């Protein structure tokens, strides 16, 4: 827009204006990346490098796993203008269920499908209330908080904390992908990193070409190249650091699988379109033939299923199910989604950005833990970052 008025004043000037327009258009997204970089740098310095050590970064990934899975599901719920407060205790309850089933001799390949199926059933119950009975999601899932907190206590009532001994189950959150090459460095991890960087670059370049062919304005080439260089170097650096330690944790692979599939559904399928249409204007969506109730129902099923998966990951990481597991998970999940740029008014949001949001929240937590910051202050800091992100989001949208 600015480029047109600036054209007579010279090529260089107009290019600069174009750059400025592109930066302004995506200020929200850049702010999130800048925040993440600031957190990493400050934490690295404050912990005298401990934060950036291979061991700690591996821990960070493991810790982020369950929150990322919850946040990805939550993003979809928030896009269609609902909320799910029950995810924390659903995760806690289903984590305890999986521990119980394992200690009762069920094999892991049976336990996980069972747990996910029960999770989907929980989602069906809540989704039915929200979509058909029209109980507000806030109320439905607040009741869910009570119910599943109670059920979690029931499952752990006799035994207290349930210790999980199953090696495969513990490996979900504590294991690493296998080493296939000789040597001290975990080369497979680095190769996967390389492949990810290459695929990402290819996808972005193709998307940009299609966009520009469709006639929509794309960011200036220079900015795009800079972005790509930044992304690929971050991925390669991370891969290099991880490969110097024990390699890629299984958690990362699971989160990647969840992220890619949800991202595919949201961006490529008809269902995803329905989600964004409902979030943008539910009445128009309904009159365009989208079954709003059905889509809402499915989204809630998926949410609770992801909550169950998060519960499995959390239980696996602790190698035990505790009676208090799940406390406050929903807070981190909702905060991650909003920090990742989901609009409070619905209709807007990307799960890829939500993952970055989850990294922001969890790297803060991790770093403050390393620094020995009291948990009370941690809540305050996270709350402040959360509200600043949302207020900034609202302001930047209003101006646009």
């Amino acid at each position, binding site marked *: 827009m600015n480029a047109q008025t600036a054209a007579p004043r010279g090529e260089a000037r107009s290019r600069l204006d174009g750059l400025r327009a592109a930066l302004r258009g995506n200020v929200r997204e850049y702010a999130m990346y800048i925040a993440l970089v600031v957190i990493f740098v400050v934490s690295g310095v404050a912990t005298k490098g401990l934060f950036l050590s291979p061991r700690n970064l591996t821990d960070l990934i493991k810790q982020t796993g369950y929150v990322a899975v919850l946040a990805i599901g939550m993003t979809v719920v928030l896009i269609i203008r609902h909320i799910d407060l029950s995810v924390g205790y659903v995760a806690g309850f289903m984590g305890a269920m999986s521990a119980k089933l394992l200690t009762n001799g069920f094999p892991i390949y049976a336990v996980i499908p069972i747990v996910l199926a029960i999770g989907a059933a929980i989602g069906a119950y809540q989704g039915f209330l929200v979509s058909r009975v029209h109980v507000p999601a806030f109320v439905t899932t607040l009741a869910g908080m009570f119910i599943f907190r109670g059920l979690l206590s029931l499952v752990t009532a006799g035994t207290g904390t349930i210790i999980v001994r199953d090696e495969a189950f513990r490996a979900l959150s504590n294991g690493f992908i296998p080493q296939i090459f000789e040597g001290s460095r975990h080369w497979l991890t680095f190769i996967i990193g390389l492949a990810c960087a290459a695929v990402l670059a290819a996808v972005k370049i193709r998307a940009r070409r299609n966009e520009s062919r469709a006639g*929509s304005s794309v960011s200036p080439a220079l900015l795009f190249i800079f972005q790509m260089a930044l992304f690929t170097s971050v991925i390669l650096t991370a891969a290099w650091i991880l490969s110097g330690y024990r390699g890629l944790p299984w958690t990362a692979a699971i989160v990647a699988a969840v992220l890619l599939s949800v991202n595919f559904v949201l961006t490529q399928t008809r269902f995803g379109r329905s989600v964004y249409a409902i979030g943008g204007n539910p009445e128009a*969506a309904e009159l365009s033939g989208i079954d709003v109730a059905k889509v809402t129902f499915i989204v809630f099923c998926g949410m609770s299923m992801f909550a169950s998966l998060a519960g499995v990951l959390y239980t696996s990481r602790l190698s035990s199910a505790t009676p208090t597991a799940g406390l406050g998970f929903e807070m981190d999940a909702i905060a991650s989604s909003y920090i990742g740029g989901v609009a409070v008014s619905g209709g807007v949001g990307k799960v890829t950005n939500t993952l970055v949001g989850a990294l922001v929240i969890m790297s803060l937590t991790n770093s403050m833990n390393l620094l020995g910051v009291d948990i009370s202050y941690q809540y305050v800091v996270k709350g402040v970052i959360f509200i600043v992100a949302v207020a900034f989001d609202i302001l930047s949208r209003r101006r646009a």
Partner: protein
Amino acid sequence: MRSEAYLLEMKDIVKTFPGVRALDHVSFRVRQGEIHCLVGENGAGKSTLMKVLSGVYPHGAYEGEIVYKGREAVFRGIADSEKAGIAVIYQELAQFPELTVCENLFIGHEIMKGNGARIDWPASLRRAEELLLRVRLRVDPSVKIKRLGVGKRQLIEIAKALSKNVGLLVLDEPTAALNDDDSANLLNLLRELKLQGVTCVLISHKLREVLSLADTVTILRDGAVVRSLDARAGKLAQRDIIRHMVGRAIDDIYPKRNKSVPGEVCLSLKGWTVYDPATEREILHQVSLSVRRGEIVGLAGLMGAGRTELALSLFGNTPAYKITSGELEVKGKTARFTHPKQAIRMGLAYVTEDRKRNGLVLIQDIRFNITLAALRDLVKGLAVDRQAELRAANEYKEAVGIRAPSVRQLVGNLSGGNQQKTSLSKWLFARPDILILDEPTRGIDVGAKFEIYQLMNRLVEQGMSILMISSELLEILGMSDRVYVMAEGRIVGETPACDATEQIVMAMATNAQEASA
């Protein structure tokens, strides 16, 4: 007229909105103690004029001068006009259904106990009973508003105005939602209040009640006063008013179409009766109509006649109306849709009246909106074929003439005309056989209108059927083959468009009771 005292004089009022002049040098005078009726087509500027008066559009937002009780009035908001004694009662009542009659009557100006900290309930109840007596309403003031019908609520609103010592009472279509008894009751009350010295401005579409009540009738058209007529002598006839309400020539703003003989009946409705649980009223009574292949059928009527409700109830019934009886046939097959997706599958499409509210997803781009209703056709395997989607969107953008740099433009940033074209494209992409258009040219400029008319002609020539709801009489007459007129939830007339004139249609729409009796 000369020597009589004017309570209100609005002089040379001009009110413009971006792109439209809603009021064009309107002068409007109301004498002390009279009932003054304000009539005109939808969009003639009646409500805008009253909003200028009540301060909804504050002083400075319009040009011109308001003189009230002999002094220039400067209203910065509704509170100012209320303080001056002007009460406006809108069609959509601003009441609190969960509060009692008494609480509603005094909300915002409660009767307080001596020290001013607590509400004096006994005094409030006594005062409420007095007020209810004045409007001849026998209800317990401690009953909740939601338990009362629309007619009684209307009276309570008048009682509320009386409690504020109203000097000028403005009623915006008070009888539109009332049945005959309640209407008669209300009109009687207005006559009584007139005897008590209350001056009243009444906006109404029902010319019969206008003539039975009015001392003066002012007719607005296209934002200007056409005529103020004295109705006291009883010589004024409905046709005089109608002549002034319409009375423009059809110029060539409507493109010609090669009218071929229409084909078989595509859409037929028999005895369609619909009840709305939300308002607890029967909103459509025994509606029967048919649309043939290759035909444009106009559905005329004034606001609130039930046309949009008719479209919604047959197109998937989204607000959950109760269809109590009636038969719908689409292309010869009996149907009753419980969700718009079924209607779409049967070849129906419905372009909504309010594109921003329920037509478009404004935060998404043109492409997203165009393909929304028929995305099914673009799915390859699991995913949407985005290249094909882009081609389709571009194709429709060109064909319909949406002016935007690309199909990736957000719809919220487009002009009204281009938004309307996007909304149309969405439904054309679904390749319907029967297209229902609800106010297809509302709020868009003349150029875009013409393009939409041309498009409609092309579509029917290709064999589509169009049912067009419109409040613009000229549009109905200029575009349709056949016209139905609706009023108060009924079809009150049917005529070939070539035989109809604005006068005939307007007479049907305003004379509902006589026509249906």
